[in-house]
């Protein structure tokens, strides 16, 4: 009986402490439409490289985390207005984004971006072609700067559909995203040309949230150190290992 009372009391204190902490529940925002980084599985839950990574990071930082999906377009505004606490959505670290939000250290190596075209169209000259990309991505800004005609889409899926429908000549996207698509569809192919853009993917945080950033940075470092991050990268095939 004493044991029961004691454990109840401990539980109550524990719950109180959790409530008092700045981040009793850390809400992780993701897109849920960018396999293998993040996607919704058959059960309708967030799954993928970043799901496993995020859960492991939270466990190491001793945080309780919850997953939220949000459209890519409004993913940064919703972070800064506090609807969730971190973006973990295959977001490359860029100087432009860094002005608005903060990033942890990168948890993937800079991944080359490739061009996806219809099979038989491998001789395409990308500089004069119509290239599809998702809005607000590093690939979209790259195409715009290169001078090719840019077609922007709200989701990665739609940009691939545009190539299949002949609306665009090619899609520029992360190689890890395009590789499984090409593998599954004989009507699509990749160009040999690749673009090295982006500084790797990191977790996006509010600039005022230094405490969470420090915790996540430490957790990522520990995963890099013991090789568990490399194991995840290998499992989900999201680029080179560290």
């Amino acid at each position, binding site marked *: 009986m004493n044991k029961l009372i004691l454990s109840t009391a401990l539980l109550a204190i524990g719950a109180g402490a*959790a*409530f008092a902490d*700045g*981040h*009793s*529940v850390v*809400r992780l925002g993701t897109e*849920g*439409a960018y*396999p*293998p980084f993040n*996607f*919704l*599985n*058959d*059960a*309708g*839950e967030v*799954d*993928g490289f970043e799901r496993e990574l995020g859960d492991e990071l939270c466990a190491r930082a001793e945080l*309780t985390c*919850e997953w*939220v*999906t*949000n*459209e890519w377009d*409004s993913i940064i*505004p*919703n972070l*800064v*207005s*506090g*609807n969730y*606490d971190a973006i973990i959505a295959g977001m490359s670290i860029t100087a432009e984004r860094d002005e*608005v*939000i903060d990033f942890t250290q990168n948890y993937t190596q800079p991944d080359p971006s490739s061009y996806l075209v219809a099979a038989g169209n491998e001789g395409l000259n990308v500089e004069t072609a119509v290239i599809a990309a998702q809005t607000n991505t590093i690939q979209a800004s790259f195409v715009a700067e290169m001078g090719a005609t840019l077609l922007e889409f709200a*989701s990665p*899926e739609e940009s*691939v*559909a545009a190539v*299949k429908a002949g609306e665009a000549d090619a899609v520029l996207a992360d190689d890890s995203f395009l590789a*499984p*698509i090409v*593998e*599954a*569809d004989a009507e699509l192919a990749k160009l040999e040309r690749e673009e090295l853009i982006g500084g790797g993917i990191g977790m996006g945080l*509010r*600039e*005022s949230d230094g405490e969470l950033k420090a915790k996540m940075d430490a957790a990522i470092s520990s995963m890099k150190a013991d090789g568990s991050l490399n194991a995840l990268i290998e499992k989900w095939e999201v680029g080179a290992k560290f």
Partner: protein
Amino acid sequence: MFSFCTDPSTLETYQWFACYFTTGKHANFYWAFVTVLLLLAVTAPTSLAMGFGGASAARSRIAPVRWLGHGYISVVRGVPDIAFFLFFVIALDQGLEFLRHSALCPDWDQPIRQGNDFIVCDAAKLPLGNAPQWVHEVYGFALAVFTFAIVFGAFAANVLYGAMQAVPRAQLETAEAYGMTHRQTFWRILVPQMWVYALPGLSNLWMVLIKATPLLFLLGVEDIVYWARELGGTANPRFTDYPHGDWRMWYFLFLLVFYLAFTRVSEVVLERLMNRLTHGQATTGGEAQRKAA
């Protein structure tokens, strides 16, 4: 769901589909229909009430109330829906958090706006940061209902205002001659007679409202169009047990049928309502009914 679903790649077509349509992801899709219908069921009466309030205010004998009513009708009708949904909801959410912040955390010394960040103390968060996900969803849904009610309320207010003006002056004069007060004339003569003039306009609004639900996604509520796009998209064999090509066309076709059926049912119901409201009215429609009877 079914016992034979353990290895979908070996199944016969009909069994495969039985498994496919009962995945957790599809359950979310079906659930989204409930959300949309619930939203309509709550929003329609709320906007009608907002509209009634707006229209009554616009006809008020007290000048400031009249200005308020007219201001509401013209400002909200003039702002594009999508801008309203993006701006108003964020402003409302931050406004509420700011009020709670001022009340709950008086000894907070940091600025609320730090660059792009909007920071209030944890106790002032709406919903609280550690609330379960369903609380966040209900909160988002409530914001959606409120925003829809304001937007559609303004249109409804204009329709009702016009309908109130359309009731023949002679009817009101007769009421006054019988010694009814302003309030009595309004509730007993004006309101019962105005519906027949308001209904065509209101039925338009209802039809537009049915089809406006994809705006929900702007507010973080996942509606049927979102799930149709998500489920119909190419499913890669590496990431699912049910790989398929681009099936969005079929999902959207299903939505098309759903919306057409839904609007058809609405039309039938609205027509019956119109018949009932016309009964005994001093309008051409009412006269025709009287002759036919």
